[in-house]
């Protein structure tokens, strides 16, 4: 079991090395699929083990003792994230191949994609802060390449902002890691809770805020979100789907670790304020924009607020709901961007002004949009309703009424902006009128449409198995809320 833990990191990296050597498109695709499926298989193995055993899997690379080795730690949260991320990476890769876009044919697409997968895997498994930094660099470097692969004017323009912003974020994170090491003499997340607690309050607050700023930029919380709606829309939809689904969620994952493990319960008030503002500002951005990719990008920001809210409330129920929200949010957000890719392929545009009457033109496409859109807005019976219900319940139980009202308000405006997309793009007479040269994206691109449908089936499945899934999430929250469990598993009690 412990050996499996290295695979979600090692296999994609190995695949990336091989795809740099073999430039043939079909060979690259085969290598990508094999390594990603292998990583997914290993993650599922760990997940099944943890679902039955309820412990924490630890792997020390090279067999060094706990204090000096590079440690990979898989608890219930990391295993769940690994499986969702792994599945999404495989499906979106199939979508990208089906899309037949210029960037997938570039010989550097597959190596970058696999390095991204390895970075995401390492971020979820890292047992120390410095390896977390290295994981961030891996996935950021790969994301820079994927975002600017076509080298168009728009990509270079927004890519520049994205790269510089994330470089600054890396610097902040590295400074934080250096200062944490200076203050405590360790970067191991198992040893840190005890040593950080001994520090003076001021030093603790300083380190805490530095880490929060670094992960806050990555997670795109208010007021550090401004780079996201600018950068994401310029990439091809397959790349944006992975970014939207996974990259900000890595930031959220790290925030969960910081708030539960390193500084338990210290940032609650600040986080609740950030959560409320992130939800509302994000959704107002979505309401004000008139281009589908932009609206969806602002929704990412808004949805991040919900997860920060769960972290801020910090009770076991709230953390369980946050983990459930992550599970719901990743496929829903990714599928919306995939649908956006289908719409763009069908009509050539995603500006609300340019497109109309899609529902009459292609009914199935409208259904593909409607299911994740309603789920994102939080309407029953979709997964978004259950996730938001859990968070609202946790908020009321903890007496945090203001932030729950903000969350419900944001939910309402999410529905408003989704209705805006729906009315402009799907209702009315077909426009532009292409009765003659009908594109018919669903028929002509079966791989694109079937993979999109698969992700959407995944979002519905989250709602269908919500009971057992929420039990698992509660188990994950129970592991999170007691740092002693983590410490005992990694260091040996």
């Amino acid at each position, binding site marked *: 079991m412990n050996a499996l833990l290295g695979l979600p990191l090692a296999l994609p990296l190995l695949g990336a090395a091989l795809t740099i050597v073999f430039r043939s498109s079909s060979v690259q695709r085969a290598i990508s699929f094999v390594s990603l499926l292998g990583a997914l298989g290993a993650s599922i193995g760990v997940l099944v083990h943890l679902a039955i055993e309820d412990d924490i899997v630890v792997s020390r690379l090279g067999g060094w003792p706990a204090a000096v080795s590079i440690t990979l730690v898989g608890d219930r949260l990391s295993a769940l994230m690994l499986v969702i991320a792994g599945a999404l990476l495989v499906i979106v890769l199939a979508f990208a191949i089906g899309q037949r876009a210029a960037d997938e044919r570039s010989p550097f697409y597959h190596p970058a994609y696999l390095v991204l997968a390895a970075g995401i895997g390492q971020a979820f498994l890292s047992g120390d802060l410095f390896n977390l930094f290295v994981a961030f660099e891996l996935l950021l470097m790969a994301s820079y390449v994927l975002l600017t692969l076509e080298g168009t004017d728009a990509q270079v323009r927004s890519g520049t902002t994205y790269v*510089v912003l994330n470089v600054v974020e890396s610097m902040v994170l590295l400074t934080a890691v250096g200062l944490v*090491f200076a203050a405590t003499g360790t970067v191991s997340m198992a040893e840190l809770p005890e040593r950080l607690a001994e520090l003076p309050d001021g030093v603790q607050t300083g380190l805490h805020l530095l880490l929060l700023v670094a992960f806050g930029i990555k997670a795109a919380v208010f007021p550090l979100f401004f780079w996201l709606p600018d950068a994401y829309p310029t990439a091809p939809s397959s790349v944006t789907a992975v970014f939207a689904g996974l990259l900000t969620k890595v930031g959220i994952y790290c925030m969960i670790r910081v708030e539960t493990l390193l500084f338990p319960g210290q940032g609650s008030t600040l986080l609740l304020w950030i959560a409320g503002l992130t939800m509302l500002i994000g959704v107002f951005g979505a309401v004000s924009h008139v281009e589908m990719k932009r609206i969806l990008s602002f929704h990412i920001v808004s949805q991040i607020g919900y997860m920060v809210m769960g972290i801020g409330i910090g009770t076991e129920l709230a953390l369980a709901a946050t983990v459930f929200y992550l599970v719901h949010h990743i496929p829903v957000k990714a599928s919306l961007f995939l649908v956006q890719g289908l719409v763009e392929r069908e009509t050539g545009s995603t500006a609300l002004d340019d497109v109309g009457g899609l529902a009459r033109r292609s009914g199935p496409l409208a259904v593909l949009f409607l299911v994740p859109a309603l789920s994102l807005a939080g309407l029953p019976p979709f997964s978004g309703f259950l996730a938001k219900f859990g968070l609202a319940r946790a908020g009321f139980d903890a007496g945090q009424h203001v932030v729950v009202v903000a969350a419900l308000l944001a939910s309402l405006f999410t529905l408003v902006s989704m209705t805006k997309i729906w009315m402009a793009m799907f209702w009315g007479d077909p426009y532009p009128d292409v009765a003659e040269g009908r594109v018919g994206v669903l028929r002509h691109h079966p791989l694109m449409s079937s993979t999109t449908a698969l992700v959407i089936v995944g979002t519905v499945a989250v709602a269908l198995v919500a009971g057992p899934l929420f039990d698992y999430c509660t188990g994950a929250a129970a592991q999170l809320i007691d740092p002693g469990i983590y410490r005992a598993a990694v260091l040996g009690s």
Partner: protein
Amino acid sequence: MNASLVVVIAVLFGTGTYLLLQRTLTRIVLGVGLLGNGVNVLILATSSRAGDVPLVGRDDTTDSVPQALILTAIVIGFAITAFLLALAWRNWTIDGDDAVEDDVEDRRVAKARQRVVTDVPDHEDVTP
């Protein structure tokens, strides 16, 4: 930690931040380099007193972990600088300069706020 290192760190962070705030991409690249080295010096300063050596078996050894961290950070910084330079060059071949542009869509939305527009466009007035 001695005072001169503190001054060096402060100067590197200050100049690096100043350069990062410029519009020209080459200056930003230089800023990233300075800032990165500032962070590296900061980590180095946490390791031990100046002059101690990272060798096992002596009394006045320094902690070698920060130096391993710096080594990794230097390699990463190198890759990022190379990528940023490539980006700057690409920007220059497209635009003829290397200034970072504004977000076009944002400006469009900001302008649209000044006029009276309906949020939901209808297509009835448009002849296809």
